[in-house]
């Protein structure tokens, strides 16, 4: 296994022979560059393009963004959250993307440190806005509803955050709370084995279900496009 050092293809490469050392180095440079280019083609073109082909063939829905379509139009992605602020819809988590919330062309967190006074101000203001939208609700606010997510595109809220909003939506949208409870249940995703991930409610799917109900109720006046 342990053969002598010299490179058989270049017999000139002997110790002390200046020309030979130079030839050996040039030879090594050539082999190194050739290997680099070869691996560039394999890992940078063949591999990703093959995976793209395989993905489009086996998992076309997921590979193209898990898009949700209504009447032939793309209304969003099941994996990317959207911004909702009308009281008759479930609100998503605060988003720190710019220039507008839930900008899916540029994910971003707030990056506010835990002791930064600005963070405390933001949280206090969000708590205030939630209480103002539903003065009857006296309980403490679930933390995920007043903190910005890591991506600014979080598609989910916790079950606690969904339940917290039900009284407000019931009143503003005129829907029976039990029905809302069932809708939340239907759009809840439970983690594998109960602990690989967290149980979450998909806000866009939930609100699309609400949207369909509102459209049925008032076919003329859609509550959000007034």
């Amino acid at each position: 296994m342990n053969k002598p050092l010299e490179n058989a293809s270049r017999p000139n490469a002997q110790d002390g022979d200046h020309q030979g050392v130079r030839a050996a180095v040039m030879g090594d440079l050539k082999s190194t560059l050739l290997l680099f280019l070869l691996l560039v083609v394999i890992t940078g073109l063949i591999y990703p393009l093959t995976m793209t082909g395989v993905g489009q063939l086996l998992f076309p829905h997921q590979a193209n963004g898990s898009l949700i379509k209504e009447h032939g139009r793309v209304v969003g992605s099941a994996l990317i959250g959207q911004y909702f602020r009308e009281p008759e819809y479930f609100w998503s988590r605060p988003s720190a993307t710019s220039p507008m919330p839930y900008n899916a062309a540029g994910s971003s967190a707030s990056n506010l440190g835990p002791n930064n006074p600005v963070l405390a101000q933001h949280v206090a203001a969000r708590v205030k806005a939630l209480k103002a939208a539903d003065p009857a609700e006296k309980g403490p606010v679930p933390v995920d509803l007043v903190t910005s997510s890591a991506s600014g595109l979080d598609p989910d809220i916790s079950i606690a955050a969904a339940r917290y909003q039900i009284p407000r939506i019931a009143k503003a949208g005129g829907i029976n709370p039990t029905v809302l409870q069932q809708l939340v249940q239907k759009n809840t995703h439970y983690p594998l084995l109960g602990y690989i991930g967290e149980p979450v409610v998909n806000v866009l799917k939930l609100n699309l279900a609400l949207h369909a109900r509102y459209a049925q109720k008032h076919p003329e006046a859609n509550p959000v496009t007034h």
Partner: protein
Amino acid sequence: MISTLLLTTTLLVVTILLGIPLGVYMHRVYAGERFWASRLLGPVERLTYRLIGTSPEREMDWKRYALAILLFNLAGGLFLYILLLLQGHLPFNPMHFSGVAPGSAFNTAVSFITNTNWQDYSGGSTMSYLSQMLGITVQNFLSAATGIVILLPIIRAFVRHNTKNLGNFWVDMTRTVLYVLIPLSVIFSLILMQQGVVQTLSGAIHADMVAPFTSGGKTILQQVIHIGPVASQESIMMLGNNGGGFFNMNDAQPFENPTGLTNFLETMVMILIPVGLVFLFGQMTKAKKTAWAILVSMLILFIPLTLVSQHFELAGNPIFHQLGVTQANHAALAGGGNMEGVEDRIGAGASALFATVATATSTGAANNAYDSLIPLSGGINLFLMQLGEVVFGGVGSGLASFLAFMIFAVFLGGLMVGRTPEFLGKKIGAFEIKMVSLSILVMPLLVLIGTAIAATTVAGRAGVFNPGAHGFSEMLYAVTSPANNNGSAFGGLSNDTRFYNLLTGMCMLFGRFWVYLPLLALAGALAEKKKTPAGSGTLATHTPIFIGLTVGVILLVGALNFFPALALGPIAEQLAPVSHVMTH
């Protein structure tokens, strides 16, 4: 906390169970054995050798091997730099991004060849698909392979004796990419795509929202959703301990990490190859007990720090309690803990676990905003990097550095009992200790001097985002991470400036090559020595006492070097009274 404990236990058990066969598999690959994998991939492997004019029988001494590593990385750096500058004129650019600015292109090229993957740019809105594939993905493979290729001659130096030959760089590189990294990446890409990670060459999606809203005086009717060839890049980025995300928010962006399962697997694969390499070491040296001792030492360092981080993240932010917010973490309702900068599907506990894994390994990926971690949890991120990326560490490079610490521990043990120190049958002399010391001490110098420069210059302080002690932590992090080839960041710091591009660029280069070239020289010296059979005076390297000694050495070096700096940053912030913070 119970489900987080379950998750952590499952993670470690699954990784070790997969790491054992991976180690055996890699042993067969690097020994050039004929088995099912070589029957499958052998033709491609042999064709490669024919094209570049080499064969496994032709071996190199350490200098020639090291030179090949340097040339290979130099070629990679230049290629990436030019590609980024020119991307505006090249194909696969559906969003028509222009060329990357030279300062950022330099920083990125250095960052990705050194396996750091520090990003001064925002991935999804800067890089063309061609740059992501031909630039970023390529270096994800090649810089990871370089780490493994650095480790192999060091292990061989213990196996062989009276020889200068340490292996053939091109063969080791080819086998690593072909037999280890590509097959694992293909499998992992498939799982990721099934779970929802995107993989397409199409440009952004324009979704017509059912609830348009106004922002900044404009009515927003559409959501522009960036997509791309993500799964193929995501898989190798995690497996290869790269960590530079396709999108700005890395593994928090749902298209990179859509479910609890992908989050678990992404956490797991960060330690998979490092653990597999520990078992490869056991296979190659036939010192399986020592391999287990290495793994146990790593776990002794990893588990307590992880549990502390998880505890603080799940307990939440004490300030929020006073604002009428509940941070209770019920398994059934979820959403508790410090949720600022955390995704709901992942949760605070799994985010803390991901953070410690990403900093214990040199991955530096992030599924949450590290800048918003509770101060002490952020401090644990810093400390895990400052230990020198030896707790699992980078693929290959981590174990190489760990072996350096073990040699140092052997040396100390030898001094204590008054015997010539030896490790795996090789006598450790003055030259070996010099090389080990050089390798261990370069990084603290880079971090402490670099942070001092940042903290004392206007340009350094200008990038700081958060006030007070946290601002110092941001600067300390911005130097610690590149110097250890980690790449994670406290994201608030503005790092795409001439100052930080240059500072972090230098830290990455020296942190990679000054740390590992001495270890290759060490390998060269060790391989030439004869193998001494273990005698009665030989210090056994698998006993609890030796594990304690090694862990002690690692902790002592890390703590002595960095405790003063940590005291000024995360520790000071953790101890700051809440009332002081709430003065608004």
